[in-house]
């Protein structure tokens, strides 16, 4: 097997050449490694001059393999594959070596860096000689899209895609779409009313020809892959016939059972056993809460059925499984609010007048449980002083180390609302104020001008045990004021805890179902933290909103729109390219032991009972290679990661292994690889 390999070592300015002797690497590999026809070093391989150098060599020197030693293949593999392709060389006959991130940027030892680079380039040459030409595969893209989560991020995605006439299914767990934004009163920093900007979007989604809302529904399972997913959705029984219900609300009025609403009203308000979470709900249709409905608990009542003018109550309804076929999936499942009971020193759940941020949002909302009045738990007394505690469950090693990003602005908003509506004194206890976005810091300045007091320091505790007459009957906030360097005790009537944003409790289950990963904190992992915050590692699965990390409304909307744009691009193109890195089984030599069958989590390996052999379905195979490593007969081929390719790479990497360890290593760089 004789090959003509071209080796190109990039200097990346001084990024690589500052540590690695690129010229010595190119020379050593060129002189000592068999089949290397051309070996060069160049200042910037990714520049158009660098690329055309490769292209010219492929044509003039008749190269049939190329090795580029430069940066991470995650950055420039596409660039160099394209360069090869342009010169008529199959892109899979090019191998990259990452000598920048993996060598020159992590060490200052020039001798060892040069030695490691030489070894890794040698490994790549040995590997590339055994690489095979592969053709990318294409699959058609189903134009339908599934959006999981009907909050503002999911709605944005759904509406943008539907505007182009493509069908979108929105799966929402709650009885109505709207998400957290529907619970809010005002939105920072503009202070426009949340409902005023959200409800038009909700009804647009509800009425759109191309948007199919599946509310009170949950995603059961996902199978298939990009372009052709099959999903199962459980439509939970509403016990209301959606065909004939008019949403008049008589049932709700007549229902005798009152239940504390800890979802929409955050525990501050009540609802009935048959209920719509809020008046602008979309779809405008109630559900029956079977845990509290007298009919389901004790077999009596049926008041709603008796009074319903259209006879829409259907007690015999059952859960229904809906099967959908979609080309792409967007996860927009949002966040859970931190359970403030986990920090007992702040007294939530024990001290009456300690509220969570979500409770306070509902309290400020004119449609909320207090009709928009800011009052204490007794529902009568207006507080004369309010403490707002930042970072409850955020930036805290005991709970979550991350910053929840939205709470500073929400706390400023609360400060403003209290000053504006009741004129009470407001104390904002912060670690750092983070007002990072457009017009946010201006809002901070404005709230300071409005007379909110800012105290820098993490609150130690909130207590109702007085130490002086002034503290009698008050909640006392104990805190070290780190600007003054003193301990302070500030008596207030009301405390608001700015709870952290946390991943949904079941986010990991959904991630597993959708085949994506979560960060250590439980947020969904994006494809690239900077360059691709919308896609995931699984093709065809995209992220929008706070499920990827704490995010405010503008960022959620932007990400939702970005996900829509990506999907529209795929729908317009009509087909999607799949890396041809898949496993294949040599059925002639398969013994039918079935060891590989159980190893594949994607169910890509089928067993042919009649012929007693296993078979890989290429469209389901994701190319991990686990079965390849497990086959006792070694008859599974993992394309592009074949045993002989990897063995050859290891040999190349260790070509210098038996050189005398006491030999001055500089000689290695100059002299090249020991054969």
């Amino acid at each position, binding site marked *: 097997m004789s090959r003509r390999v071209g080796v190109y070592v990039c200097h990346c300015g001084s990024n690589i050449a500052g540590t690695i002797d690129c010229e010595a690497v190119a020379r050593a590999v060129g002189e000592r490694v068999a089949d290397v026809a051309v070996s060069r070093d160049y200042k910037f391989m990714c520049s158009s001059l660098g690329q055309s150098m490769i292209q010219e060599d492929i044509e003039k020197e008749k190269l049939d393999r190329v090795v580029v030693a430069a940066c*991470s*293949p*995650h950055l420039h593999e596409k660039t160099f594959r394209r360069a090869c392709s342009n010169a008529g060389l199959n892109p899979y006959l090019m191998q990259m070596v*990452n000598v*920048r*991130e*993996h*060598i020159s*940027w*992590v*060490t*200052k*030892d020039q001798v*060892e*860096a040069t*030695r*490691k680079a030489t*070894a*890794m380039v040698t*490994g790549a040459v040995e590997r590339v000689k055994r690489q095979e030409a592969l053709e990318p595969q294409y699959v058609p893209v189903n134009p339908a899209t599934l959006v999981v989560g009907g909050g503002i991020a999911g709605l944005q995605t759904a509406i943008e895609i539907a505007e182009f006439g493509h069908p979108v299914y929105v799966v929402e767990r709650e009885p109505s779409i709207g998400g957290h934004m529907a619970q809010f009163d005002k939105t920072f920093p503009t202070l426009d009313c949340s409902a005023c900007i959200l409800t038009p979007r909700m009804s647009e989604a509800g009425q759109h020809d191309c948007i199919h809302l599946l509310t009170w529904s949950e995603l059961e399972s996902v199978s298939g892959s990009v372009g052709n997913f099959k999903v199962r959705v459980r439509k939970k029984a509403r016990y209301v016939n959606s065909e004939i219900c008019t949403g008049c609300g008589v049932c709700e009025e007549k229902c005798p059972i009152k239940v504390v609403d800890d979802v929409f009203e955050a525990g501050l308000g009540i609802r009935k056993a048959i209920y719509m979470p809020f008046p602008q709900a979309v779809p405008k249709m109630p559900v029956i809460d079977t845990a509290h409905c007298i009919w389901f608990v004790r077999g009596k009542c049926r008041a709603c059925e008796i009074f319903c003018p259209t006879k829409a109550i259907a007690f015999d309804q059952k859960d229904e499984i809906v099967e959908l076929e979609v080309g792409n999936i967007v996860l927009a499942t949002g966040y859970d609010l931190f359970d403030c009971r986990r920090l007992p020193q702040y007294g939530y759940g024990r001290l009456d007048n300690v509220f969570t941020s979500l409770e306070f949002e509902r309290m400020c909302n004119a449609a909320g449980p207090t009709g928009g009045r800011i009052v204490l738990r007794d529902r009568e007394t207006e507080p004369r002083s309010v403490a707002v505690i930042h970072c409850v469950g955020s930036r805290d090693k005991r709970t979550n180390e991350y910053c929840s990003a939205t709470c500073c602005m929400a706390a400023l908003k609360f400060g403003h609302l209290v000053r504006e509506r009741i004129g009470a004194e407001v104390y904002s206890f912060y670690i750092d104020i983070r007002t990072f976005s457009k017009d946010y810091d201006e809002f901070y300045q404005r709230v300071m001008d409005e007379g909110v007091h800012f105290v820098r320091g993490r609150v130690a505790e909130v207590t109702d045990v007085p130490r002086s007459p002034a503290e009698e009957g008050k909640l006392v906030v104990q805190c070290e004021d780190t600007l003054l360097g003193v301990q302070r005790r500030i008596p207030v009537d009301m405390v608001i805890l700015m709870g952290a944003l946390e991943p949904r409790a079941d986010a990991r289950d959904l991630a*597993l179902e959708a*085949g994506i*990963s*979560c*960060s*250590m904190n439980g947020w969904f*992992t994006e494809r690239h*933290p900077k360059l691709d915050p919308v896609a995931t*590692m*699984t093709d065809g699965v995209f992220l929008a909103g706070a499920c990827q990390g704490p995010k405010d409304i503008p960022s959620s909307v932007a990400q939702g729109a970005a996900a829509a744009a990506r999907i529209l691009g795929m729908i317009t193109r009509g087909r999607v390219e799949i890396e041809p*890195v898949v496993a294949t089984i*040599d059925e002639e*030599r398969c013994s039918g032991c079935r060891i590989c069958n159980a*190893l594949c*989590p*994607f169910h890509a390996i089928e067993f042919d009972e009649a012929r007693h052999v296993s078979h890989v379905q290429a469209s389901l195979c*994701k190319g*991990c*290679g*686990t079965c*390849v*490593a*497990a086959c006792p007969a*070694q008859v599974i081929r993992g394309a592009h*990661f074949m*045993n*002989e390719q*990897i*063995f050859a*790479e*290891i*040999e190349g*990497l*260790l070509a210098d*292994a*038996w050189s005398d*360890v006491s030999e*001055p*290593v*500089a000689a290695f760089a100059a002299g090249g690889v020991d054969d």
Partner: protein
Amino acid sequence: MTDLEFQPKIIGFLCNWCSYRAADLAGSTRTRYAPNVRYVRVMCSGRVDPAFVMKALSLGADGVLVAGCHPGECHYLEQNYKTMRRMTMLQHTLRQLGVEEGRVRLVWASAAEGHRLAKAIDEMVDRIRSLGPLRWPAGWQERPEVLAAIERVASEHASAAQEVAT
């Protein structure tokens, strides 16, 4: 560092999705660590056939690192659990062959944990440096019968591989 100091040669298998990116991140954040690990990129740590590890050790590597995504974070859902099983078995075998603990290591590093990978590598290099070169099996390169046997096995492998390829 003197030229005479023992520089262990370690082969590191990195999975494409987490640990390779962790190594990328260690680079972009200029985290300094020992340059003794020579990387092989695989799509998943589950691709690492124990034979790769044995091959590396027999070709003169002083240690082998296998790095993958954290359990529960595998890009291929659960394949790193299979890596874990294999590595446990392999380490058991290596112990019986007299290969010291610490020469073959499994490390989890997410794409956000460049520092973690770097730290694990530094620890591993220190450990292997204190153990000295593996030279495994001891002195085989001076024994013609071993060389002949290796040659024979290698050519059988090559012809088997050729057979698979055709």
